[in-house]
């Protein structure tokens, strides 16, 4: 009897594409290890430098590895935050909001600009910073109202591509508006006045020194808290349920008394708040300039990885991209002369797409024919 069941089990066992991948990678790694141990792959060969040396470095200098990992994680949390801005709007209105990047810049510029204006009338320091924060929030709310009224409402029921193009228009409007009001010069984020810590902590661990910027800790904590709150909010509250309902069926949502217009305003405002926080954090790490909007493009591979509708996907995707590009830059970058950080994220996303076209958290794509 047991013989029969074993046979049927063997018959049921099939090499799926996933198993083939794992087997292939494992076999290749085994070959390399054997090759390097037996001396078949010399220390100056290409294969050694690409496949063996980086891992050897990671093991030999764990403190450097920890430092790289930490910087990757911080970058990853911030990418996740930007991706979240996209996901929020995509979930509720099916629009890919190309303007998310410029919203980050515009929010940060409003904050700094308002602070400077307050300075000219004699209000300075922390009080001015928090008034400016209120002003920036109000401006993002006004922007949400305006977008709903001027862009979304007249274009309701239009194809998605039309709405997508409309967000292009919004992008250039905000660039022009930002330059006209605040000027094109980079500004310094008012990090101290907002009680963001500065300086660094040195940890003597792993046989070396790991330096952690206090600002990075604050950024990671604030971004994580924000992501957690938004995720819970979406899952368990009235407005959160209404948002998901709108994403599923417009007519059913209308019939139970959900106002589409109100939902859109809430979603765009939430995306605006996310943009403001992102702007403060990135602005404090570098400075506030229009160049900052390109970091939003870094959210694209994150979205490809995580799926456009999944909040957990945005988080995990952000972390993978952040860690992946930092480690790639540090250990493999020197092989090609460095500066691979700018495109590595897209390559990572492409490789993932080869094996999971639906993204990490998307549903399996099954088409009826």
């Amino acid at each position: 009897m047991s013989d029969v069941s074993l046979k049927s089990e063997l018959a049921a066992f099939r090499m799926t594409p996933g198993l083939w991948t794992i087997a292939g990678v494992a076999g290749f790694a085994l070959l390399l290890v054997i090759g390097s141990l037996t001396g078949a792959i010399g220390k100056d060969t290409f294969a050694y430098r690409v496949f063996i040396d980086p891992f050897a470095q990671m093991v030999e200098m764990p403190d450097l590895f920890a430092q790289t990992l930490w910087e990757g994680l911080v970058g990853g949390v911030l990418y996740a935050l930007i991706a979240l801005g996209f996901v929020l709007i995509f979930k509720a209105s099916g629009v890919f909001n190309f303007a998310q990047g410029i919203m980050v810049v515009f929010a940060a510029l409003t904050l700094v600009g308002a602070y400077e204006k307050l300075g000219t009338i004699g209000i300075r320091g922390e009080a001015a910073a928090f008034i400016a924060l209120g002003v920036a929030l109000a401006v993002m709310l006004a922007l949400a109202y305006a977008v709903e009224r001027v862009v979304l409402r007249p274009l309701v029921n239009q194809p998605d591509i039309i709405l997508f193009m409309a967000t292009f228009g919004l992008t250039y409007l905000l660039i022009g508006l930002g330059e006209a009001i605040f000027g094109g010069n980079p500004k310094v984020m008012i990090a101290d006045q907002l009680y963001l810590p500065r300086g660094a902590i040195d940890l003597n661990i792993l046989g070396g020194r790991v330096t952690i910027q206090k600002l990075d800790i604050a950024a990671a904590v604030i971004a994580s808290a924000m992501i957690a709150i938004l995720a819970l909010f979406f899952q368990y509250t009235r407005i959160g349920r209404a948002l998901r309902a709108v994403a599923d069926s417009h007519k059913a949502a209308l019939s139970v008394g959900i106002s589409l217009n109100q939902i859109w305003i809430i979603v765009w405002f939430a995306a605006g708040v996310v943009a403001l926080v992102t702007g403060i954090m990135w602005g404090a790490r570098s400075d506030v300039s229009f160049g900052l909007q390109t970091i939003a493009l870094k959210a694209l591979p994150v979205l490809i990885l995580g799926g456009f509708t999944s909040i957990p996907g945005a988080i995990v995707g952000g972390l993978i991209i952040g860690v992946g590009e930092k480690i790639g830059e540090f250990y493999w970058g020197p092989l090609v002369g460095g500066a691979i950080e700018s495109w590595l994220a897209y390559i990572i996303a492409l490789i993932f797409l080869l094996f999971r076209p639906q993204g990490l958290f998307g549903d399996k794509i099954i088409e009826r024919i």
Partner: protein
Amino acid sequence: MNAPVKIPVGSAPLEREEILLAVENVSLSFGGVKAIQDVSFDVRKGEIRAIIGPNGAGKTSMLNCINGFYHPQQGRITFKGRTRPRMRPHEAASQGVARTFQNVALFKGMSTLDNIMVGRTLKMKEPFFWQLWRHGPAMREEIRHRAVVEDIIDFLQIQHIRRTPVGKLPYGLQKRVELARALAMEPDLLLLDEPMAGMNLEEKEDMCRFILDVNNQFGTTIALIEHDMGVVMDLSDRVVVLEYGRKIADGTPAEVKADSRVIDAYLGVAH
């Protein structure tokens, strides 16, 4: 059978003669297509009113007008004594009109429980701030409404599918979840668009029982579209018959059944 349910009742005790909804001389057209032409009828408080007619007679268009999805070019709709101007669906909902759809419109990715909770949207008032933290007043409100939703789940006997995403449910159960969502709104007027379409006999009998129970226990006024004549004759207090967008008969089931124009519309005119 069912324990008495403690769902707050939307409407007052049955007063058969009071008119809840009056439709007067309503006409609706899409370009050259005249979907509804000069139709008038009323719905009395506490009754079950059926709207019947052959395919394309304008029944669903009529519901869409009452519900605010369509805006008739002519005519007036008076609800609870107030003649309303052009109104959007969520405004109709906040005045106490709930509905189900011919082809089920549920939030497919969400669980049964969440779908029904969405029906409570208009009853939940706690501000955004508390909801954001899911704490304090918002949490207490959530618990209060969850209790009401559990009562509805018991009432419609769908306890076992509470956590199932509705996209996975069989059609008959999806229709029941849709009814549950409409009931969660505690409506004064419940519009049912073919609640029994595509069901087998057993499911139909269940649904009939639920509709009668809703009407008896909560006093909810119901307007329903249905093709199954047996069901219509058994359930409804009064029937209005539409054909090609016009009203051709209006009265009790017995009267309508005997009307020669109705027989012609359904069986074809003998030449």
